[in-house]
């Protein structure tokens, strides 16, 4: 089952109130090593057959990211890679 992952983040110069609020809350959890938090969107697009990056890009452009304040990156989900570098945590 082929997946394209789209990460949408606010442009660096754009204020991220959400990230700020979380960052300011960390000390109360006893966490101090974290200097900044930015919160964006992660979107999983499931394709019937072969994942079509161009189509995915078109969708991201039109529906997923707001070009005025956001940028996006996309990549085909290579679950193998994910499995080894990332770690599931069905908390």
């Amino acid at each position, binding site marked *: 089952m082929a997946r394209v992952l789209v990460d949408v983040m606010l442009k*660096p110069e754009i*204020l991220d*109130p959400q990230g700020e*609020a979380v960052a300011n809350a960390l000390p109360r959890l006893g966490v101090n090593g974290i200097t900044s938090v930015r919160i964006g969107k992660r979107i999983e697009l499931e394709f019937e057959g072969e994942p079509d990056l161009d189509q995915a890009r078109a969708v991201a452009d039109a529906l997923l990211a707001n070009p*005025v*304040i956001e940028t996006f990156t996309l990549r085909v989900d290579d679950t193998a890679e994910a499995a080894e570098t990332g770690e599931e945590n069905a908390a």
Partner: protein
Amino acid sequence: MTGTQPADRTESFDELDTVDVASKTPDEPQPYAELGLRDDEYAKIRDILGRRPTGSELAMYSIMWSEHCSYKSSKVHLKKFSEKNPRTDRMLAGIGENAGVVQITEDLAVTFKVESHNHPSYVEPHQGAATGVGGIVRDILAMGARPVAVMDALRFGDAEHPDTKRVLPGVVSGISFYGNCLGLPNIGGEVVFDPSYQGNPLVNALSVGVLPVSRLQNKNASGLGNVVVLLGQKTGKDGIGGVSVLASATFEDGDTDNRPSVQVGDPFVEKLLIESCLEMYDAELVVGIQDLGGAGLTCALSETAAAAGMGMYVDLDRVPLREASMEAHEVLASESQERMLLIVSPDKVGEVLAVADKWGVLATAIGQVTDTGRLIINWHGQTVVDCPPGSLADDGPVYNRPMKEPNDRALIAADRAETLPRPSTDEELRATVLNMAGSPNLADKTWITEQYDNMVGGNTALSMPDDAGVLRLDATGAVAPGTGPVGIALSTDGNGRFTRLDPYTGAQLALAEAYRNVAVTGATPIAASDCLNFGSPEDPHVMWQFAQAVEGLAEGCAQLNIPITGGNVSFYNQTGMTAIHPTPVVAVLGVLDDVRRRVPMGFDNDGDVIVLLGETYAELSGSEWAWSQHGHLGGIPPAVDLAGEQALAAVMRRAAEVEHVSAAHDLSDGGLAQALVESVLRNKVGARIKLPDHADPFVWLFAESTARALVCIPRGHEKAFGALCEEHDVPWTPLGIVDSSAGGLEVVDHFSISTAELAEASEGTLPRLFG
């Protein structure tokens, strides 16, 4: 959470354009034209400074002398407001302040203002509209008031146009997001669709606040040695696009991207800003205060210093930055949101920082009040600004721009809607009523308004879809002696089509409608504010429209005996050569001695007698009927009758006091037909209507004659109410009775429409278009 250290920002140190450098390099070419300054304006700046401005100074002058900040094209006309304003001892602060302040009771005052955020809302609808709300709320806060409500007057392009589907939902979600999260009830507004706003939606936001008279604040940076404190959000590159041409050539940093970066609002921080400012006011910690809006620090620093006739020293390196890589002119021009500038006496600074810290808001001392009479700003230890603050804030250019009456006026006036084909059969009348009820401008606005919290604060006595928003001034425990709790009523109105046909009349019609909307709730109108949305002042025709509208508004307020307490001008609302319909939006404020007596709209009690107040004439030009049924705009708008409006208001006020009326609804867009439809749909209670025998049903149903309202009189009060109308010379015509057994709107001898059919037509439109 402190500002980035100077150490991090040496990237453009060597070519820093200081006052010394500027004096030594008089011939250095400067991009003043790109910054929107004319040759003579640039020359005047050099003249004021006795040298060329530094980059930072050039940025500041270009901003403060812009149309938006200097009102250079409108000043000469706006004078009329002050000249014509009726004298009243209610006015505690007027034009020129952040917002006008009107005294309501012995110890309570109210401040309200409308401001536009049109262009930003077109570029980024959600954030543009959100920050529009945030901006006007800070103006209200700066007067010493607790903001208690917002309203939004919106204009969009054609409802069916694809771009409207992008702009409207974004604007509404932005207003909803910011206002709701801030805890301010939204108590009213407008939504109008017209192709003339396609490339220029109008987003006018109103905020109203309440303050104890004794808490009134000012923006004076007075008191030698007092400390200048910046409160709120860190400063980032928000909205600095305007001055980006000044970015130093050899900018090393990765992002040389200087496109205007969109301002993002954080209502959470604004809420904390409100609470901390109010706590500081009550503890008398603040000498002067000014909000940071458009023009950011540049405006706040120069206006506070100029207002006090003092000087000011600012160490710009102390300003907490969101991004290290900012230059002086960027810090000065930044429009980062949720910031206030405070002037604090040195012995109170500790307490101010403590209050800010309690609420988790950043507060930083960035300078002092001096007696040099100059605004001096240092950056990296060197002086980059040294100028008289008044030259930025007050002595900007003033233009008497050429004006020219459009030559098509005679043609337009001759093209009267009264001559258009009319529905001739009862079946056609019925179809027209239904079709208009479902037309975007008249259709039910719940899809929009249910995204707004209208009740937070617990003082909302009336709100959408009632004619005016009504608030109890309970927040500060006000009960006028001998009466119940005091209330205020507010309505905003504007009619671009009428104003396009005749700007003088159109402005007065907007005023009259807002006044009427307030009056039908039983409130006494006492003050007005405005937001004047027009095209380019460099177009003589637009300038003429503007002058006419101001003249009409000032004259109208004088006749209604209510002062204009302040307002806002938005020029350059046009795409290419075509301007929007000239659109003055007028807000009227009223008072209710006992808010419990406020009159709602909508049929409710079976048996109530329905009475039409006012005269109906065959006035159809510029009407919603002409536009929605024929796409026609021409002729002469309905006649203004301000004496009639005053008489109507007097009747409504008295009738409300003695409870002669159970409901009332003013007649405006769509005329009697639409007023009946809205009154039936409000509580889903029907009515039987019998038009007078002499009446031409079409004219009576669809004409938009002014100074009219529909009222419901409980059985037994008819005589007394009739006498009241005669006493005030208000024509009154019994039209029928409230009757739930009618099952909807029945116009005897002509047609009837079931409540369900009306609801489907009216309530289906916006969800179909935008849901």
